[in-house]
């Protein structure tokens, strides 16, 4: 392997579009995912996440744009390519009559160089449940087994479509541990989620999708340019509830408290709020996509 090979993005998308009849589900997406990173595709239901990920997996045909996954066009890629990716679908019930171990063995048989099944069982935290039929496993355990079945072929790239939707907090935490463990294996992970905290916890980089477009992208901590967003100061003054929005909170607060001391009124219920990631996310995804277009997209 030479440097240029390593530097080549694992996923590269340019101007991706997908329409169903008159409805445009994906309206021009550009992005790259690099080797070894965990990339999260974050957005509300109906934003176009699953459509995009299924185009990358080769299940759907795109209407326009260019896509390369592991250097191949998924629409034309064959068995050898499928041996290099692992897929966890948004919803899939595993065969309830096979045990966890048998399900993994079955899938291992499809690949040229599978990982040892016991190792995978350990990796997804199912050591105590390996000989349990999958129908008897909890939802969270089934999902981790599903991740294990995607891992057993030892793929370079893993697609996880909403891996923790519908989980209770404990099950989510366990799933997160399993996914975070993939980083140590050097896998590239493309994850979709509608949970902000999931993206924040797992991803190196995030793209927020709304109405078929990417409306923000970056490392979780710098998403939506949170540092330069205005601060909101609220309090109850003599005239009732007051809310101030400011980009210079230190000066504004100094002025406010100075006035309160000088004029002798209390700042009841004083609150200083910076936008949380959740706020940024909600603001970005609730606005009509037109108002928050990150890139130039010709309007139909």
């Amino acid at each position: 392997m030479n440097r240029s090979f390593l530097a080549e993005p694992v996923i590269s998308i340019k101007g991706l579009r997908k329409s169903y009849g008159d409805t445009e589900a994906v309206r021009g997406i550009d992005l790259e995912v690099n080797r070894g990173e965990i990339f999260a595709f974050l957005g509300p239901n109906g934003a176009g996440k699953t459509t995009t990920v299924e185009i990358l997996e080769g299940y759907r045909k795109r209407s326009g744009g260019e896509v390369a996954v592991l250097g191949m066009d998924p629409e034309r890629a064959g068995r050898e390519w499928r041996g290099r990716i692992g897929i966890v679908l948004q919803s899939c019930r595993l065969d309830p009559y096979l045990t966890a171990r048998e399900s993994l063995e079955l899938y291992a048989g499809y690949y040229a160089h599978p990982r040892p099944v016991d190792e995978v069982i350990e990796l997804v935290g199912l050591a105590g449940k390996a000989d349990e039929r999958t129908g008897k496993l909890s939802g969270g355990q089934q999902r981790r087994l599903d991740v294990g079945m995607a891992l057993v072929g030892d793929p370079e790239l893993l697609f996880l479509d909403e891996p923790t939707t519908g989980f209770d907090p404990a099950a989510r935490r366990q799933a997160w541990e399993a996914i975070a463990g993939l980083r140590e294996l050097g896998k590239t992970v493309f994850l979709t989620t509608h949970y902000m905290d999931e993206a924040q916890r797992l991803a190196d980089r995030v793209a927020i999708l709304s109405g078929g477009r990417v409306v923000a992208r970056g490392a979780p901590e710098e998403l939506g340019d949170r540092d330069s967003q205005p601060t909101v100061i609220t309090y109850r003054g003599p005239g009732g509830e007051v809310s101030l929005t400011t980009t210079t909170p230190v000066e504004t607060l100094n002025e406010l408290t100075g006035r309160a001391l000088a004029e002798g009124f209390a700042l009841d219920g004083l609150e200083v709020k910076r936008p949380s990631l959740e706020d940024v996310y909600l603001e970005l995804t609730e606005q009509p996509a037109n108002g928050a277009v990150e890139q130039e997209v010709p309007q139909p």
Partner: protein
Amino acid sequence: MNMLIHQLRYDQKAFWRNPASVFFTVAFPVVLLLIFATVFNGQTIEVDGGIEITAYYVPAIITLAVISATMQSLAMSLVIAREDGRLKRGRGTPMPAWVFIAGRVGNSIVVALLMLGVIALLGRVLYDVPIPWDELPAIVVTLIIGAAAFSCLGIALTALIPSQDAAAPIVNALLLPLYFLSGIFIPDDELPSGVIEFANHFPIRDFFQAFFTAYLPGGDSGLDWGNLAVVAIWGVAGLLLAIRFFRWTPRSG
């Protein structure tokens, strides 16, 4: 080829652990044989110059068992796997599509052969219906042609079944009346000729006649090429429809 044997092994495991598949394909034909052969035991019927009714029911119920192990079982289990997302998931692996389908069809043929043994043995032990050992090659060839054809029809039928809940009603609504009309439940000398004529348009009747011919000892037994050809044509038509209309992704959701 190794992958096919691998697939077949796990299909077999899953099949035998599924109470619904074991009931419909194994227990149901056995129960039917016990009911029909016990209730009508001792009667003779005007078929093939007069035979014991039990000698009629053994090949009739084997015919039914072969169709349930193939067409019925495949249509139901493939729709369930499709709607669960398992077919789609499998397509995302390097496993070739033909391995998956061949595994399922192979599984059905194994079960059909096993049912041949079970019903033939019960017929021999309980009702003194001789097992025509001399005809074994013709019986096995007939059974395999039928099993392959009804497997193809079962796979094609999945295209008409929109959901898991619809699978059993659609399959049964199609097969149960045809079993009756084709003389599987009621001996064909007691059915009006119009009924038989109607049933002749469907492959269950053809397969039953071919299998009956192969199973009856002596006389004009052996391979009934005419009826087998009709069954095979149905099978090929099913295969072409399956190739055209079979889908790997769930219809719902």
